[in-house]
Every structure is written in structure tokens, then in C-alpha cells.
């Protein structure tokens, strides 16, 4: 049965596809590129939102797992493996590291967790930067683009920007549906319970450290997918793309857009990735200089006047209403 909401969603996806198609016909590669980039960020933010927005664990090193996913994909693809084999392997590798980090961390709360994840993010970047033998250091892995196997789906080969756009869109939309299922499941409700009051959740019989670890590890799947697609799409990877500020940027998208709300965080991506790029095209180079300055100021103002984000989560109010 299609209700209004579902129809709206399908219409939205169709509109995005049509826009992308026309952008492609008109040779507007740059706009198409930005749309794809936004798709990658949506994937990342979906994962991060599961940790920050749903479970209430502040993670300032999420970009590390994007990096691990991307680097494993790049290294595997040099060996000549195809995308469909690299994808699950990279997800496993990323999840493994996430588990390794998460297991001892689940006792920590709030700020402490934020700092440890930050530390891990920086360690990852510094290791990628210095382990020349494996990663070719700060220069990044060159020639991935040439040595990479193009993605094949049955007999179809991905070659153009538009093909990658559809691939990204497919994974993004798929992830959104998957995450919505999780959010409405028993586990999803446990996430929110932990975010709202960890002690109360524990008393109610939720195994909080297991659930937190589950949220923590599951979130890295999306980072890994984003990393693998990014490498195949761009064909290059270097530690420079995975700085602390990228992590912060992701956190800002989640918090400013509206923690815990899928529509909100997607809006956060459009706001923080899309708008600056489109403004740069329309306003020219001058704007770039002031972009981050304005951005920092906006963050403070928004957090003070609208701490719940631009499009806040409706869940709590909804649940209260439905009780009556």
C-alpha cells in the first residue's frame, strides 16, 4: 500500500533522477559532480547520525572509518579485485577496526568518548601519512584510477559520471530505507532510550554496552560503503581528505540539520556541502575566503537559538501523542 508519505518519497527520488539526467544532457558535469558528492556525504552522515543522533554517543573521529574503507578499497582494487568483492571485504575490515576501538570504549561517556574517537581519527590519519610502504604516504595512492577495475553490473560497465551518480543514489536510498527499518525496530528504540537516559535504559533491562557497541559498529558500514564508492568514483586517495576538520564537518551536518531526523541530516548535507559549492559558482572566488568564517559563526548562533537543529526530530512528540 502506498501512503502519502511513501509517494512523496518516490516522487522526490524521481525528481532527483530527472534533474541529474538533464544536468548530464546539458553537460553540466560540475553540478552532477556536486550532486554525487552530496550523495557520498549523505551516506557518511547516515552512519554518523546512528551514533550521535540516535544513540547519543559523540563521535569526533568518524572520518577515520571512511578512510579505512577507502584505503582498503584502493589497496584491494590495485590487486585487481572487482567492486562487488571489494565492497563486502572493505566493510568487514572497517567494521573490525570499529569493533576493536569500540569494545573498550563503551564504558566511557560523553566528552571522554568524543576525545578518544578524535584521537583514533588522528592516529589513523598519521599512520596513513607515515606508513609509506603500504599507503605511499602523504602523496596518496597514485594510479589507482588507471589500475582500478571499472564497476561492472552484469554486462553493463560504469564509465560516466552519470553512472556513478546512479550508483551513489542507489546506495544512499537503500541505506535510508535500511536505517528507517532499524530505527523502528526494537534495537532502534533501545538506541533512543540510551540517548535519553542511559541509567533508566539499563534499569529497564537493555544491555546498554552491547547496544551501544552495535550502534557504533553498524554505523561504520555506511562509512565503508561511502569510502569504497568514493575510491572507485574519484580513483585517487590521500590522507589529506581525512583530517579532523572533516569529522567536525560531518558532526555539524548532523547537529545543525537535526539530530536523529533523517530528513534533517540530509538537509544538513545540502546546507553544508551543496550550498557553499553552488554559491561559489554563482558568487565567485571572493566568497570562498569568508565561507568558513561565516560557517563558524553560524554554528554558534544556530546552536544557541535552535539547539535541536533546523529540522528537529519529531519522534518524542509523536510517541507522546500516540499514547493518548
Amino acid at each position, binding site marked *: 500500500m502506498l501512503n502519502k508519505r511513501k509517494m512523496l518519497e518516490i516522487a522526490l527520488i524521481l525528481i532527483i533522477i530527472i534533474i541529474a539526467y538533464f544536468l548530464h544532457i546539458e553537460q553540466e558535469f560540475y553540478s552532477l559532480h556536486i550532486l554525487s558528492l552530496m550523495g557520498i556525504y549523505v551516506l557518511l552522515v547516515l552512519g554518523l547520525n546512528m551514533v550521535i543522533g540516535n544513540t547519543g554517543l*559523540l563521535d569526533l573521529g568518524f572520518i577515520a572509518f571512511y578512510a579505512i574503507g577507502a584505503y582498503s578499497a584502493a589497496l584491494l582494487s590495485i590487486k585487481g579485485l572487482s567492486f562487488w568483492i571489494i565492497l563486502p571485504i572493505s566493510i568487514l575490515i572497517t567494521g573490525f577496526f570499529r569493533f576493536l576501538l569500540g569494545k573498550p570504549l563503551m564504558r566511557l561517556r*560523553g566528552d571522554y568518548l568524543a576525545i578518544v574517537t578524535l584521537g583514533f581519527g*588522528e*592516529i589513523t590519519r598519521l599512520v596513513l601519512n607515515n606508513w609509506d610502504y603500504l599507503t605511499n604516504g602523504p602523496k596518496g595512492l597514485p594510479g589507482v584510477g588507471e589500475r582500478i577495475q571499472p564497476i561492472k553490473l552484469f554486462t553493463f560497465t560504469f564509465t560516466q559520471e552519470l553512472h556513478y551518480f546512479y550508483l551513489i543514489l542507489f546506495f544512499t536510498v537503500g541505506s535510508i530505507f535500511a536505517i528507517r527499518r532499524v530505527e523502528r525496530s526494537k534495537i532502534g528504540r533501545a538506541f533512543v532510550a540510551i540517548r535519553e537516559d542511559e541509567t533508566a535504559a539499563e534499569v529497564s533491562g537493555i544491555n546498554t554496552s552491547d547496544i551501544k557497541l552495535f550502534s557504533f559498529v553498524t554505523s561504520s558500514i555506511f562509512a565503508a560503503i561511502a569510502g569504497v564508492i568514493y575510491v572507485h568514483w574519484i580513483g585517487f586517495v590521500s590522507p589529506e581528505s581525512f583530517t579532523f576538520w572533516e569529522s567536525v564537518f560531518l558532526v555539524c551536518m548532523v547537529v545543525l540539520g537535526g539530530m536523529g531526523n533523517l530528513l534533517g541530516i540530509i538537509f544538513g548535507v545540502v546546507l553544508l556541502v551543496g550550498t557553499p559549492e553552488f554559491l561559489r559558482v554563482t558568487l565567485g572566488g571572493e566568497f570562498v575566503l569568508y565561507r568558513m568564517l561565516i560557517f563558524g559563526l553560524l554554528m554558534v548562533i544556530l546552536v*544557541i537559538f535552535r539547539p535541536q537543529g533546523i529540522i528537529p526530530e519529531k519522534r518524542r512528540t509523536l510517541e507522546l501523542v500516540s499514547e493518548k
Partner: protein
Amino acid sequence: MIFQQLINGITLGGIYALIALGYTMVYGVLLMINFAHSEIFMAGAFFGFFLLISFSSIPFLQNNLFLQLLLAFLISMSLTGILGIIIERFAYRPLRKASRLTPLISAIGVSIFLQNLFMLVVSPQAKPFPEIFPVKNFQFGVLSVNSLQIFIITISILLMVVLNYFIKQTKLGTAIRATSSDVETAALMGINTNSVISLVFFIGAGLGGIAGILVGMYYGSIKYNMGFIYGIKAFTAAVLGGIGNIPGAMIGGYLLGVLESLGCAYISSAYKDVFAFIILILVLIIKPTGILGERVQEKC
């Protein structure tokens, strides 16, 4: 060789400790990580830079090295202190009752703002820090120490002694300690906690500003994005000593400085910045309260 590394470690450690005091004092009263502290430190370095440059063209000050340095430190300390108060007033105070996540986001916003402001106003390139006095080497047996290191070690110890006296012996210091142990009760006892919090930000930011100048003098160059790495190392020092604990921050600073120098010398200098992070993660996992810290009650 090992003594040499110890001297380097203590020099750096003193700087880390000065910055760490800012983190730990703010955490003591507000239970929040002041992420913008690293940018205050960077601002201090630039204030010192501009002051010292302009002093060298004032005839009255030109030949008086002592007065130049004293004025540079005092003015720069006051400026960063005021910056700290402004940040607290506008970015943190409205959020005092909010969830713990929001002040952190606000702090990151301030940090991004300040970094980009300095990048636009000063320049994205590194600036060479003026050489204030000629660096002389002193030989004590196998040990060689230069005048700059002696200067930095002396300044950092002096400041910490003064701070310790202020916190332990004066009325205002008592007010800070009272507010730090319980804001509400302190307010009921007639302490103006808002002023105390402002004072804490002033002192913390001021010490961070001085640390900025010391780093500029030690390494000879400063940059708009230098704050992050020192900030995170100083934070590690604060956690290592026990966050919220003032003597802890000092011990943590020196310990981190020495460990880092030894790690650089005997393990690998390429991974210089990794040591701090590994220490940070290990401390938080094994003993989150640090060396001197007590278990802090979770703020609800």
C-alpha cells in the same frame, strides 16, 4: 643523550602544562571541554608577535629587553584573557543548561571562526617569530641547555607557582575552588559564580596566550592553524594528570613532554604526534580519572 631529551621534554612539558591549565580549570567549573582554547593559544602567539614587532620600533623600549618581554607577556595575556571571557559570555553561557553536546558544538564553531579570522587577517602562511634574545648554549657536564630553554622553563614554573598561590591562598582562589566542587552550593554560599567562571576563563586563556608566545619563541614560527595540535596535546596532559585537577595538569604536562621527547628520540620521530594520542587513549581506557583525578560525577 637521555638527559638532553629530558631537557627538551621539560621545556615542551612546561608549555603543555600552561595550556592544560586552561582546559582543566574550565572543566573543573563547567564540566565541558573548551575546544576553542587551542585557538586562544594561537591568538596569544599572534598577539605576542605583533607586540614584539611593534616594540622593536619604539625608541623607549628598543634597548630594554626585559621591559619588552614583560609588556608583551602582560598585554598578550590580558588580551587572550578578555577573548576567553568574551567567548564564555557569548558562546557558552547561553548554553549552560543545555545538553552536554551543544556547548561542544558551539566551541567547535568558535574554533573554526577564530582560525579563519586569523587566516584572513594575518595570512595563511607561517610567520617567522622575531628572535628576542640571542640563544646561548650552556654546558653543564654532559648536559647542554640553551638560554631559551632556561627562559621557557623558568617562566612556566614561575607562572604555575603564582597560580598555585592564588588558588590556594587568596579569597578569589577559594571561590574558584568552591565553584569547582559544586556550582550550585557555591552560589548559595554567596559566591557570584558567573564572575568566578569569567575569572576562570580569564586565567586559563591568559596562561594559554603566554604559552603561545613561548611556542613562537621556541620554534621560531607561528601559523593560524598551530592551535589544534598543541591544544590536543595539552588536553592529553590534562587528562593524564586528572582533568579538573590543577596540580594534575602540571604533572601531566611535564610527563607528556618528557614521554614525547623520549618517544621521538628512541622510537620514531615520524610518529611524533601519535604518542600523545596513544597515551590519551590508553589513559582513558585504563584509568579515566588520570593520575591525580577523582571520579567526577556525571552532570545530568
